[in-house]
């Protein structure tokens, strides 16, 4: 690496942001990096909208009788929080932004395999998002993000169909992104970029893409069947017209459990990169980390029934789903141990991305370990549908995915924008997010074990203390999310030029300019070694 010493004074003259200008050049772009930014902009809008609903939830629950809203409004608020965060933020988050931006660069390609389809996927996402917004403006949805029948199909008077159409449409953007990533990874790797030289981020995106392509059609089918029942009164899920409500849950979770891995696997890929760069070391047990992603993607398709231990499936189905759920926990444990071992004899920085990576390990650890509680079928009977579950999945989806997303954003921001952000603010925000998150969700484990059910607009007074702690934590968490929004926006215009490789990191993305040129590399790179090979000290000395 040759760039760590001399502070760059200007951005490169020519890069993907300035080669073309004007609104049209953005709306009709086929550049994966620009599409990544379109996605970044849209999912950030949805994130703050979903976050606003989270804020309303936390304010409502300050008092046992509900401080803010009536029950109907509250039901709509938590539903919209879930729908927006899951389908319009978390699922697209890392793949559509960081994945879109980085996957071609990391394998030394000029773009994704199907650039126009990539742009199409963003438009599909936006169209789906508009339906979600229409559902919201038209009065909201009150089914919970799980849309359980027969409530959603026969009972609810809210905008179920509009929201369902939004989810149906958005699913296709996931499928197209997944397809694009799979083909790109197979066909577009630079000379010398063998499968086992791929960065672990690419492995994780690849495993995620498999789930997107195989799983997402099932949610489309499920939503469609629900719509049939709601509109045409075809008896599919409602027993009063000959349907089976548990069938809906089977179909829903057949997608929505793997969807959790769509959210968290890319995060694991980000963390592998952050740890390797933060410790300037190759990831310990590379192939185990890579294959554990595939193992999670495959086994993750076989565990959906653990959402239904009290739903009326047979005891033996419950046992099978319980044991497979424990099996899917093992590869996650393997990853965690490998990240920890990577730190051994590393050269560990305390840069913002590394702080996020540490935060991820801590929160994902708690999220994963509490998953073991819920997989124990005799214990899950008590825990399911309580705040214990709420806390658990927020540790995975927010503590895991969102920490990784923010960490990744801070790690690659200099590459994306070409500029540096104020480091002190960034570190402070990382600490705020970590502390605020724990204060928000740790008390919910306790409230859940005592028995506080989820989706309650009002609750018995003995749970109040835990809700006050949660709301206090959420306030800190909110600040931790607002700061990056502000200073990253600021740095986009006023940040110091970052140079090609501000972290002294390895990887093809650090060998091109910041920001990269439209086709990423001036000449196609030739790869001669595995990912994150540091320790060639004679090279380092060349400053």
């Amino acid at each position, binding site marked *: 690496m040759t760039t760590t010493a001399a502070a760059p004074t200007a951005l490169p003259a020519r890069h993907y942001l300035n080669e073309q200008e004007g609104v049209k050049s953005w709306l009709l772009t086929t550049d994966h990096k620009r599409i990544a930014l379109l996605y970044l902009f849209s999912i950030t809008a949805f994130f703050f909208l979903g976050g606003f609903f989270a804020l309303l939830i936390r304010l409502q629950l300050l008092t046992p009788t509900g401080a803010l809203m009536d*029950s*109907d409004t509250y*039901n709509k608020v938590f539903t919209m929080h879930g729908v927006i965060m899951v389908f319009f933020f978390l699922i697209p988050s890392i793949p559509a932004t960081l994945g879109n931006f980085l996957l071609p660069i990391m394998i030394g390609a000029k773009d994704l395999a199907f650039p126009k389809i990539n742009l199409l996927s963003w438009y599909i996402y936006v169209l789906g998002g508009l339906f979600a917004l229409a559902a919201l403006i038209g009065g909201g949805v*009150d089914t919970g993000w799980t849309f359980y029948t*027969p*409530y959603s199909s*026969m*009972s*609810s008077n809210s905008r179920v169909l509009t929201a369902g159409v939004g989810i149906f449409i958005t699913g296709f953007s996931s499928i197209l992104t997944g397809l694009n990533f799979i083909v790109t990874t197979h066909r577009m790797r630079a000379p010398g970029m063998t499968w086992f030289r791929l960065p672990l981020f690419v492995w994780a995106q690849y495993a995620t893409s498999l789930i997107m392509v195989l799983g997402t059609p099932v949610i489309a089918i499920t939503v469609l069947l629900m719509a049939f029942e709601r509109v045409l009164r075809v008896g599919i899920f409602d*027993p*009063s017209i000959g349907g*089976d*409500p*548990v069938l809906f849950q089977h179909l829903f979770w057949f997608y929505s459990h793997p969807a959790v891995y769509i959210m968290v696997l890319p995060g694991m890929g980000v963390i592998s990169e952050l740890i390797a760069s933060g*410790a*300037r*070391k*190759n990831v310990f*047990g590379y192939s*185990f980390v890579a294959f554990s992603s595939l193992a999670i993607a495959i086994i993750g398709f076989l565990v959906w029934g653990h959402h239904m231990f*009290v739903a*009326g499936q*047979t*005891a033996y189905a*419950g*046992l099978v789903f*319980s044991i497979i759920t*424990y099996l899917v926990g*093992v590869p996650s*444990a*393997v990853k965690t*141990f490998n990240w920890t*071992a990577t730190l051994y*004899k590393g*050269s*560990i920085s*305390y840069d913002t991305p590394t702080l996020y990576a*540490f935060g991820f390990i801590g929160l994902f650890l708690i999220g994963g370990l*509490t998953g*073991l*509680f819920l*997989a*124990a*079928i*005799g*214990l*899950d*009977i*008590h825990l399911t*549908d309580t705040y214990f579950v709420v806390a658990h999945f927020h540790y995975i989806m927010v503590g895991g995915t969102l920490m990784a997303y923010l960490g990744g954003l801070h790690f690659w921001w200099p590459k994306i924008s070409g500029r540096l952000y104020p480091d002190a603010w960034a570190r402070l925000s990382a600490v705020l997010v970590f502390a605020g998150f724990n204060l928000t969700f740790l008390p919910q484990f306790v409230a859940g*074990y*005592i*028995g506080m*059910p989820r989706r309650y607009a009002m*609750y*018995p007074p*003995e749970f109040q203390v835990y809700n006050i702690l949660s709301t206090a934590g959420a306030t800190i968490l909110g600040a931790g999310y607002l700061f990056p929004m502000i200073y990253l926006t600021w740095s986009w215009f006023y940040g110091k030029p970052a140079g090609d490789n501000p972290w002294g990191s390895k990887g093809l993305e650090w060998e091109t300019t910041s920001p990269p040129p439209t086709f990423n590399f001036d000449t196609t790179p030739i790869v001669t070694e595995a990912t994150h090979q540091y*320790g060639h000290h004679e090279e380092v*000395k060349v*400053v």
Partner: protein
Amino acid sequence: MAPSIPIFPEQASTLASRVDNLYFFMLATSGFFAVLVTVLVVFFAIKYRRRHPDEHGEPIHGSLALELIWTGIPFIIAMVMFVWGASVYFALVRVPEQALDVYAVGKQWMWKFQHREGQREINELHVPVNTPIRVIMTSEDVLHDLFFPAFRTKMDALPGRYTQLWFTATKTGTFHIFCAEYCGTRHSGMIGHVTVMTQADYENWLGGGSAGGSLADKGQQLFSQFACITCHRSDAQGRGPVLNGLLGSTVHLANGNTLTADAAYVRESILNPTAKVVTGFQPIMPTFQGQVTEEQILALTEYIKSLPAAAAGSGGTGGAGASPAPPTPGPTK
């Protein structure tokens, strides 16, 4: 009422401590690994902190032995957790034979309980202490879930099906009942209390009596009122099968299949009589869909259960046991 700031739920059933012991085991095991990883991360982060901007880590590629260890140990621990969880689960789902039956019907947004003795309650349930209680439940509309945190058990109530849970309360007092499956506007208002009483108090409470007699008596009245009795006679001369000793017996169907009669079968036969026609009979029974409530179906079932089995005729060829078998909730299909 629980203390103002509880950190742990009351243990008020025989299985509460078994569930809690598993919980403590999980806490201890996961606590150990959480601390282990956290200490290692913090220790490495400090010991191997970057001391020079151009410093690199040592190239260490991995260790097969370590990978096997940290795959194998979590796997073994996971299997222990699975087996422990499964054994607690079996205790939670295996209903003791002598359990007292109580029926629950969920609807938006209340729990309706019916005792076999005839008492009906809404959002309140009275049960005797130290006695196994089985709650057999269904729903009139959407999904609900009957949750007793102090007993560490819950079960979804589904429309069109019977599901069940059981507990033996070990403490007298009043404990929460929650609806744990989201069911619409007043989901958080679908709560109540279970009052656990001494045997004597419970007898007194039952002695308060209920208009219309026991649940089976109510069923008998309905049996006449809906004119079931004209076809389902006990002397095997009716146009419908004899119902004495039906529950638990083997029923031979016209399509050649056989099944063991349970409450779900009785319910289906009332609401959709042509779905499963008994061999030797014509599909002439009209449906009672929309005319009979879930609670009335439970009363009718209870009445059929109370019929003396001795007169069992062509309807059920099995049913050797003298006492009517309890309905076995389960999938209707």
